[in-house]
């Protein structure tokens, strides 16, 4: 079972900022998007049990290399890094076009995507890419396993989960419930140095530079501001009974009880 994991390199959580053109500044230190690492871990476990290899695929600036190196150190066999100056500022549509083109060049049984990214995407890219590739899309997985017919997942619901099956190749979007990612071992870090990182450009994907990037964007950031500060907390330091009475009065005054 060969698995491609789509991994986004995002600014380290807490350090994100916008550039003067209102595009996310990705010249800061980048790390693998937290949600994507759960999928990488699951992909590694599946290939360890059932054979096959894991390829990590990222679209992003030069700074994404570190996240790819870490993925290789964790156990991925190979990395593909789509990088091109023209990509900067791409909208969701262009991102989908690039991802789709890159996946077309790879051979896989399963392509994994995370539920969303910490720097602002809303978990729609996986579904769009699957549709463009004409592949089954299985989402919100808490469990992924091979099945006779292809792949079987548990899709989380408000009351439990549904069991979904589809033939492969398929695109699977997964969640944190797949399990915490491992730390790279020292041996893994050493081995990662000799693993291939393929650099692909837009030309390699057959995509015209004008069709992606800020210039082609179908959406536009208008402005940004700091969210209004909350007024600040009133502290109650009295014993429990007195404190509770004050809370009840407070809630009643706000018509919350």
């Amino acid at each position, binding site marked *: 079972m060969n698995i491609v994991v789509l991994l986004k390199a995002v600014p380290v959580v*807490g350090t*994100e*900022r*916008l550039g003067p053109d*209102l595009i996310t500044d990705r010249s800061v230190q980048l790390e693998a998007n937290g*949600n994507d690492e759960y999928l990488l871990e699951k992909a590694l476990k599946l290939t360890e049990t059932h054979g096959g290899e894991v390829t990590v695929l990222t679209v992003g600036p030069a700074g994404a290399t570190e996240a790819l190196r870490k993925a290789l150190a964790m156990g991925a066999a190979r990395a593909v890094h789509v990088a091109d100056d023209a990509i900067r500022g791409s909208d*969701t549509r262009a991102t989908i076009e690039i991802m789709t083109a890159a996946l077309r060049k790879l051979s896989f049984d399963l392509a994994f995507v995370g539920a969303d990214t910490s720097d*602002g995407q*809303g*978990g*729609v890219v996986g*579904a*769009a890419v*699957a*549709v*463009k590739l004409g592949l*089954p*899309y*299985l*989402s919100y997985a808490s469990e992924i396993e091979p099945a006779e017919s292809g792949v079987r997942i548990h899709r989380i619901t*408000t*009351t*439990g*989960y*549904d069991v*979904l099956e*589809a*033939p492969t190749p*398929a695109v699977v979007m997964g*969640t*944190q*419930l797949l399990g915490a990612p491992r730390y790279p071992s020292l041996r893994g870090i050493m081995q990662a140095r000799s693993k291939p990182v393929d650099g692909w450009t837009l030309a390699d994907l057959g995509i015209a530079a004008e069709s992606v990037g800020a210039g082609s*964007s*179908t*959406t*536009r950031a*208008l*402005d*940004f*501001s*700091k969210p209004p500060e*909350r*007024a600040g*907390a*009133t*502290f*109650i*330091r009295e014993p*429990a009974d007195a*404190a*509770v*009475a004050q*809370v*009840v009065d*407070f*809630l*009643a005054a*706000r018509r*919350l*009880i």
Partner: protein
Amino acid sequence: MAEIWAVGEIADGQPTKLTLELATLARRLAAASGSEARTLVVGAEAQAAAESVRPYGNVLAVATESSLGARPVASVVAPRVAALITERQPSFLLVGATNDGKDVAGMLVGLTDLPILVNGAAVEWVGEAPRVEMSTFGGKLVTHSTFTGNRGIVVVRAGSVTAEAAASPGQLEVETLGAASELAAVKVVGSVTEAGAAAPIEEARIIVGGGRGVGSPDGFRMIEDLAHALGGAVGATRAVVDAGWISYSQQIGQTGKIVKPALYVACGISGAIQHKVGVQTAGTIVAINRDPDAPIGEFADLFVVGDVFEVVPRLTEAVKASKAAG
């Protein structure tokens, strides 16, 4: 001007609360842009659900064969909405930011190549297109974005507007689409209800959250009791979900759910940035924590410095007494 559509969702035969919010929002955007609004409901129970949407505006019900019940909802809804988009050319579509809604939105982009903006917390008509407010980078920034053209999809979170009925009920239209070109097959082969599944937090008006400070899975009993007394749902931090104390469906935060209740009571929760992201837009936040320096103090309205095991059960009793006294 082309119509503005809301794409609804059906749960237990009825439109979800978010569907009525989207219908309300579509109506407002249509009024501001001089066009018509319409809400689409797709499914085997579409017609019955559509009746409940009518007070909120025009409805287009697309009935589907029950045999499609073995497919995931989004894979049934998306190709049918896409076919209607091609046929009727609406300008903008609103889709709810639920799991199914995001799947539908992504599939629609794949099928129609329409532009998309996600995570909308508020949507207004400005100039020629919707202006979408989003909370960005874990709530550090509020950004506004819009479309460069006159068509697109906006994924909208719960609570962007309060659902309000229209001055007069809308028209109900029933569409029977021919065979839609179905998406690659995914089958639902089973459905498992987990014991003790908690009330969903997405649309809850009141949420009581528990963190490490509640000590153990048993500690969540008092959280449940308080939630029950307040008529709310139980939420949790990632740490306690990872520890297996409560199910992932209740997790609030960056890798969990973003919620916007009128009241959030945070019990034994320190308020790490990843959790803050999920709940900072709550109307009122009450924190109960032993540590007065816990970061949750920076975004709570009321902070009870005390032991959750002493405060929470007493608060539950006091709330019950207050409600009984009416």
